[in-house]
């Protein structure tokens, strides 16, 4: 175990504990979010993003850390995102929560994990084909939304904060 491994393990333990405490590891929480009956997943994700966004933006501006954007590859994101959405609704877990669900005893998630390993192996085989088709369509590079709009990150953070807080108010008012 190197420093890299220890850092990953300890961070993951906090990640797993918080996923579990936020009650987002459950099949019913994920499906009921998609059916708009229970907003727990949205509350959890938006809170994490809001806090993380402020800290990450600050640390990048202080020169302490750097961004590691994923490419704005339109073909991959749109088609991949669609395929992901279908699989997610059927599996009832996303990749990280499937692992955590096992720890809560929801062992049917084990089959989702086996499926994901199978899917990863299939993807590795079709990758060359995708590279010359879907992924070659339109790649706008590794870019942040503020850069793309030519503005400072803070207005984007502010709008995101307002929208999130508005959503939180609505969720609690509606009791979902």
């Amino acid at each position: 175990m190197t420093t890299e491994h220890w850092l990953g393990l300890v961070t993951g333990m906090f990640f797993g504990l918080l996923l579990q405490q936020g009650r987002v590891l459950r099949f019913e929480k994920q499906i009921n979010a998609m059916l708009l009956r229970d907003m727990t997943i949205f509350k959890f994700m938006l809170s994490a993003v809001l806090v993380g966004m402020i800290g990450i933006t600050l640390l990048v501006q202080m020169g302490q850390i750097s961004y590691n954007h994923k490419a704005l590859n339109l073909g991959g994101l749109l088609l991949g995102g669609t395929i992901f959405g279908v699989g997610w609704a059927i599996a009832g877990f996303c990749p990280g929560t499937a692992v955590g669900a096992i720890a809560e005893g929801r062992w049917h998630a084990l089959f989702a994990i086996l499926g994901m390993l199978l899917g990863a192996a299939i993807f590795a085989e079709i990758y060359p084909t995708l590279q010359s088709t879907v992924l070659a369509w339109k790649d706008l590079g590794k870019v942040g939304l503020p850069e793309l709009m030519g503005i400072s990150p803070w207005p984007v953070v502010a709008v995101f904060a307002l929208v999130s807080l508005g959503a939180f108010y609505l969720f609690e008012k509606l009791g979902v």
Partner: protein
Amino acid sequence: MRPRSTLDFRRPRGKGQPDRFVHRILWAHLGREEGMPEKNVPWWRPYAAGALLGVVAIASAWATTRWLGKTNYLGASTTFVRAAGLLEKTVAPDHVAQNAYFTKEKVRVEWQFMLIVGILIGALVGAVLDRSFRLEAVPPVWRERFGPSPTKRAIAALLGGAVMMIGARMADGCTSGNGLSGLMQLSASGFLVLPVFFGVALVTAMLVYGRRTAP
């Protein structure tokens, strides 16, 4: 009312019946109300847990930059590629070595792989401490729609998982890497793909689980 599984050792078997051994040993000292319903989770819990995860993400970005020389953000799906590669390597090492995608993502146990191992441990600690651990083969929402067959559920989970992972790798990230980490960094890709994830999942879920047909 879901039938109580014989494997369900979270709660005592009811008045007049002896508590399960595991239950007595593990939970008795916590002094909690037995069989505390899940409804008692306070309303602010998902917000608090989420906000703390935001703090963990910030700390992790800082720590990985400080000690590993490269800023790592939370993610999950690449680990499944590495795990699949490690498994395939045991039967066909040459095939894995020649595969462009495995070469690109590097088949080895690295930071994110250990992050996933950590998720398992952390979630287990939480589930044991708050007594929410429960062996479940078929979730209630699934049962309402498709009945109690664990085989049916297993096949769907397997197929769903496979489809989901193909999509995640095509989009270069899942709900963690593209969703949480993408939005935290204000990545254009995250803002584009997260609504697609949720939008398509919503439509699919409405079609799949929207009607209730099972008795």
